[in-house]
């Protein structure tokens, strides 16, 4: 039975409104169609991310009952409250705060990575700032370009602390925090350590919430262009599942628009020699992973088995839980599998020297850049994956190539690694990897056909989800978590032996890859993530084949090259080992 919440009444700009107690002034104003500008505020309530520390002072409104200004994003409505959002006092205070921020912000907008996608820039336009009355000293902090995935230019930081909330509270990684006092305050790593010297997971959630370009991905675009222009090189590209439901947003489509065919077409126009589907790699991963799980169950191996597709999560457990290195699956991620297969099987089939193959992957993720750079993913002197570009970078490349994205005709993936199943598409959202695995495990264990392939109990946005899936006589106990803070709680419970699972899926980003650090900026709109998720379910629903082991190209790969799941060659190419790392 749901308790009736208490209602309170307030007046905003002379409009009376009843809202539930606990509603913020900002939310209440929205209900009566009153817009209040915000900057530091971020509310992704459904995935447990709320930045509400009221420090930018852009959302101030006047509380007429008390005659003072209050931050509407954080202050809750009280009964009888009288609010004026556009009193001269409030408007002047908001303008002053914005002018002050701008007075301490570089003016290189034209060449900035966030140009036209910057919340500060939009706000300056929205508030019609034409002059900055208070000029003076500007911040001058060192930039950090050391990491393979993330670049930090603290001089563009406006101290909104969204990244701190993300890193410390949501992800519990705790790399970023404010240092110093007064004007010298800067959000940075402890003692200004390089990202590389910290326990950063490179999940990129700090990047995805940064309103300016203080945090951005390290771009690979120039290197990719160079390879594309090198006639010696055979440049191939793979596209991750979550990319196809997000990239179109950069071209004015509604969130959740599926543009797989157009993306393939665009990449071919740009000059890639072959376009592969990371979903093929996902199907391959499922087969290897299901094989590993069944083996662990049958031989009394270490349980639970944890998925290992997410590179930020891998980085996280190596740093934070070095004592649990034997529980994640030894499978490489789909990206790395496609990379390894390209430079062996594909090279062999096409008769190309693997050293001339350049593998580029198009990912919703910045951690994938760090994953591709890991030394263990290099064989015979060349890496499985040479370059990783994010969804955002790919959209910029398409624009740079002057391609009219909307006019493109759909094209298909290339052979050998172009086929995929509905199960693979689910890899892009929380719960998807384990759902795909269950489909394969069911048929593999029972030998019977799985009729209803959708496991509703595994879907949703809750931070930690549990379900028991009946597979023949076996009750498979499944855990799902997304966001590293939730993950930490679950792992600590496992370490204390308080919970028992057979298999657990973990994704570092809230929502999974649909909310990845390399995706088009959601600017705090949770609906965008939900629509991307629905789109992935739609791809699955409409797929001809919905179980990974039914993928014919994957079957062909085993037949002609890998022999069988878990074979020696499969182990050599598709599996990895983890290293304990220091926690800083």
């Amino acid at each position, binding site marked *: 039975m749901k308790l009736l919440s208490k209602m309170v009444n307030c007046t905003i700009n002379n409009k009376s409104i009843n809202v539930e107690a606990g509603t913020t002034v900002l939310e209440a104003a929205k209900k009566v169609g009153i817009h209040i500008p915000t900057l530091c505020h971020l509310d992704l309530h459904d995935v447990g991310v709320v930045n509400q*520390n*009221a*420090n*930018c*002072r*852009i959302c*101030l409104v006047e509380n007429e009952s008390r005659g*003072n*200004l209050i*931050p509407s994003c*954080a*202050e*809750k409505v009280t009964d009888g409250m009288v609010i004026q959002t556009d009193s001269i*006092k409030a408007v*002047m*205070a*908001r303008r*002053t*705060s914005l002018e*002050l*921020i701008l*007075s*301490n912000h570089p003016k290189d907008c034209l060449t900035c990575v966030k140009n036209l996608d910057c919340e500060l820039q939009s706000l300056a336009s929205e508030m019609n700032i034409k002059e900055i*009355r*208070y*000029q*003076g*000293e500007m911040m001058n902090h060192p930039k950090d370009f050391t990491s393979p995935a993330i670049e930090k230019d603290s001089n563009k930081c*406006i*101290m909104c602390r969204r990244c701190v909330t993300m890193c410390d509270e949501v992800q519990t990684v705790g790399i970023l*925090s*404010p240092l*110093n*006092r*007064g*004007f*010298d*305050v800067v959000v940075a790593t402890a003692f200004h350590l390089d990202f590389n010297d910290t326990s950063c997971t490179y999940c990129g959630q700090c990047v995805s919430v940064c309103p300016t370009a203080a945090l951005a991905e390290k771009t690979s675009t120039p290197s990719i262009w160079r390879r594309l222009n090198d006639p010696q090189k055979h440049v191939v590209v793979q596209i991750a599942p979550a990319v196809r439901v997000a990239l179109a947003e950069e071209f004015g489509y509604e969130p959740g628009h599926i543009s797989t065919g157009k993306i393939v077409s665009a990449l071919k126009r740009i000059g890639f020699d072959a376009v592969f589907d990371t979903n093929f790699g996902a199907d391959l991963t499922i087969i290897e992973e299901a094989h590993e799980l069944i083996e662990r169950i049958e031989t009394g191996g270490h349980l639970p088995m944890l998925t290992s597709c997410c590179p930020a999560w891998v980085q996280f457990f190596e740093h934070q839980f070095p004592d649990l290195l034997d529980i994640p699956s030894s499978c490489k991620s789909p990206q790395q599998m496609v990379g390894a297969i390209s430079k062996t099987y594909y090279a062999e089939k096409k008769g190309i020297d693997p050293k001339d193959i350049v593998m580029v992957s198009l990912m919703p993720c910045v951690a994938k850049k760090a994953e591709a750079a890991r030394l263990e993913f290099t064989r015979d002197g060349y890496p499985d994956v040479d370059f990783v570009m994010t969804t955002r970078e790919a959209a910029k490349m398409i624009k740079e190539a002057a391609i009219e994205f909307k006019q493109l005709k759909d094209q298909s993936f290339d052979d050998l690694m172009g086929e995929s199943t509905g199960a693979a598409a689910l890899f892009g959202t929380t719960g998807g990897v384990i759902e795909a695995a269950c489909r394969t495990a069911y048929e593999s264990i029972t030998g019977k056909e799985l009729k209803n392939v959708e496991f509703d109990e595994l879907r949703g946005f809750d931070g930690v989800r549990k379900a028991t899936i009946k597979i023949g006589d076996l009750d498979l106990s499944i855990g799902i978590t997304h966001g590293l803070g939730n993950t930490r709680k679950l792992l600590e419970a496992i370490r204390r032996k308080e919970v028992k699972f057979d298999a657990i899926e973990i994704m570092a980003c809230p929502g999974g890859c649909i909310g990845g650090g390399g995706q088009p900026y959601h600017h705090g709109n949770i609906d965008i993530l939900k629509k991307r998720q629905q789109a992935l379910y739609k791809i699955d629903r409409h797929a001809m084949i919905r179980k990974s082991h039914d993928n014919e190209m994957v079957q062909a790969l085993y037949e002609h090259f890998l022999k069988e799941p878990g074979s020696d060659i499969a182990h050599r190419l598709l599996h990895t080992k983890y290293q304990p790392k220091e926690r800083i």
Partner: protein
Amino acid sequence: MLLVNSLNDLKQWKKNVLKRKKYTMTLVVCAGTSCLSSESDLIIAMLKNAIEKNQLDAEIQVKPVGCLRFCGIGPLIVIEPDQTTYMKVTLKDVDDIVKLHLIQGEVVERLLYRGDNDELISTITEIPFYKKQRRIALKNVGLIDPRDIDEYIAHDGYLALGKSILSSTPEAVIDTLKQSGLRGRGGGGFPTGLKWAYTAAVKSNEKYVICNADEGDPGAFMDRSIIEGDPHALIEAMTLAGYAIGADQGYVYIRAEYAISIEPLELALKTSKEHGFLGKNILGSDFSFNIDIKLGAGAFVCGEETALIRSMEGHRGEPDKKPPFPSESGFRGKPSVVNNVETFVNVPVIIREGAAWFSSIGTDNSKGTKVFALAGNIKNIGLVEVPMGTTFREIVYDVGGGHPNGKKIKGVQIGGPSGGVITEDYFDTPIDYDSLTAIGAMMGSGGMIVMDEDNDMVEIAKFYLDFTQEESCGKCTPCRIGTKRMYEILERLVNMEGDPKDLERLETLGINIKNASLCGLGQTAPNPVLSTMQFFREEYEAYAYRTKRTTYAVDAKKCIGCTKCARVCPVQCIEGKVREVHRVIESDCIACGACYEACPVDAIIKP
């Protein structure tokens, strides 16, 4: 070791202390921090040594006490019982005091205080500085030995606590406080009884009593002096608070640089525990309470209660939005009472003497007394405790003795970096919370700095702003960037690089920072600028229009051509022949002021 288990035990203890053999003479020596820095610890050691050597130790004792408050004339020695008072005592004076006063019974006249007409004043009570003062918070400070719990007991120590927990109720304690009209002495002036009542009303299995001993205002040192001089009063008050709100744990948040205060507090905590005033089952009741010390790193912003709590929790000391207030969600998210030291130590006195007694002192809305740290261009520098409603004029002239060199006093800065400047026109304003707010200042924690005609108000405002912008935690935009920009404008002005538009910028920015900042620090940071702009606008304009002279000059009408100025000028920028009018070469003048000091006829005009 006596474990006090009842009110009778306590009363008996007091009787025993009073019955003890009396010394014929007691040398009360100030061992407050500023006197210690003038070697009062060595003076004490030498006195003890000499007394022993002369075999007088059975008759004469030396008693180190906390601050005797008239810091300008320290180290002070008051000889009981006749209260002969020696000032500015140095190690060299010890021999004379022992030989003349202690052995021969003669007063050492050269160490006595001299009045306005150079008359000798031999007893402390006759010194004008002390006359208008009335002590409640500083009641025992400078009177008792802070390291000796017996002395505190002899002055009715722990009686209020005993009475309350053994024969009263928490509600009655809060009611008394409410009726007394006590308001917070840390700045905002929130009614203490109400604060306690709010915290008491919240249901929680965990509550905390927190003493804010961060005391960050430059020049303010009353809280430190109370802890140094009367630590048990704080312990008693916090325990009372614990009883009243239903908490069993208290914390004193004190800056680590107050090392000299921490030591007697630690000792007092230990002793009070041994005697059953703290710990389990206090005074035999079923009420238990403990106090621990939390050291702060001395950030000004940690004096703001939410920042203080964050710091206590081990986080970065940054203010949080209010509501929720600490009374609802404070330390570790639990209901907490936060009061400063001066507020707390009023409580036992109020409980003992009654609400009616306390509320008879002061004005309508501000009851009791307030301690000020009087400093600047004033004759008598020290701690001043006066009833609320005392005027600035009384403090500056009667207590403070006016300007040391008879110059015109231009204003008083009150409330530290958060406060404002009061001009002579307002000197008859009675000092209480509401009158101060009405004239654009605030009580603050009680810094009071006197400024004379020579002080440059723009420079003074700049000094305060430099302080606040450095001490800003940097969390919210207006304070982080705004105070920096205000400081930059002021810097531009005093460097004669500003323009008239800067005045408008300064004012607009100041008002918006006040309106838009997140915590009390930011909301008050522009006050020193805005209030000086209000009262001394011509000084700002002189900079903005660049009409301010920055060099010295010779008044041709007064100059007698004695050449003294030219001879002392270190850069030889004064020219002129003997018995002719001299002239300052302005481009070379470094404004050192040597000529001003040298001129026998006041013919040098200051910048």
